[in-house]
């Protein structure tokens, strides 16, 4: 578990931070949303983001904004891609398709799991799902392609 509010060890930079910290403390937007890294393994990652008053998309219902769902899906897909390789490498999202199956429950936070199911030399393919309470009843699903090793 990596919490965005955990302190960064003195002297640590993005370059030598482990993946858990890169995705939380070192990612300002993830921090602004309060994203927490739940688990990471080869090609897979799970992250959560809490419900907050200022992240609501429909004030009539108090449901979290679909934009937050988008950010969480994108971020967790990036985590899964980063966790698929042996070394951390710069990546770039090519495209991201999101299906919003249903609104999240009012005042509910979100959990997202992403799976980098296929990696080629230059491209990574990812699927992700986000849910509020029940893993089998997703709020949104995503499919994305990433370009790998964008620096070389």
């Amino acid at each position, binding site marked *: 578990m990596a919490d965005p509010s955990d302190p960064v060890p003195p002297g640590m930079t993005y*370059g030598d931070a482990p993946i858990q910290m890169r995705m939380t403390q*070192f990612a300002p937007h993830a921090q602004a949303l309060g994203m927490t890294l739940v688990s990471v393994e080869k090609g897979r990652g799970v992250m959560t983001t809490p419900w907050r*008053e200022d992240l609501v998309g429909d004030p009539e219902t108090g449901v979290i*904004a679909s*934009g*937050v769902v*988008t950010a969480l899906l994108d971020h967790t897909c990036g985590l899964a891609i980063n966790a698929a390789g042996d070394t951390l490498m710069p990546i*770039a999202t090519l495209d991201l398709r999101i299906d919003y199956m249903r609104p999240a429950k009012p005042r509910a936070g979100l959990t997202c799991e992403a799976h980098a199911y296929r990696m080629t030399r230059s491209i990574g393919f990812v699927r992700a799902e986000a849910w509020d309470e029940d893993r089998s009843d997703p709020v949104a699903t995503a499919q994305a392609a990433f370009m790998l090793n964008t620096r070389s």
Partner: protein
Amino acid sequence: MSESPFESVEAFLQRVPYARFLGVRVELAGDEMTAVLPFSQHLIGNPMLPAIHGGVIGAFLELTALSQMALAQPGRRIPKTIDITIEYLRSAGPRDTYARAILRKVGRRVANVQVEAWQDSRSKPVAGMTGHFLLRNEV
């Protein structure tokens, strides 16, 4: 009682807490709307590049689509997003981002909207989006 189309979009963006969290606003020239995402540190996804978070760009494109629909149909409830496909073309630097939407088809129940976002030059878009939105009856 009746508000101008601009007031209607402004009211929409003011009503949505998440739009305020991102800092999205709109500018109108006649019936042409440009959405603006002023740069702010909390929008950064990768501090090394640095670049605005891909999810923020996606959310901004979606809000631009919703704003354009609010402009076209003032007073209607916020449409529900059915699906979006975001294409990332260039990394979005730590600068203001702009976007414009085209309502390609507004049917009875579903709208198809296309959005493009750019920073320095409109001819060099940073991202594009196509989305479907479920239209809802007047409140």
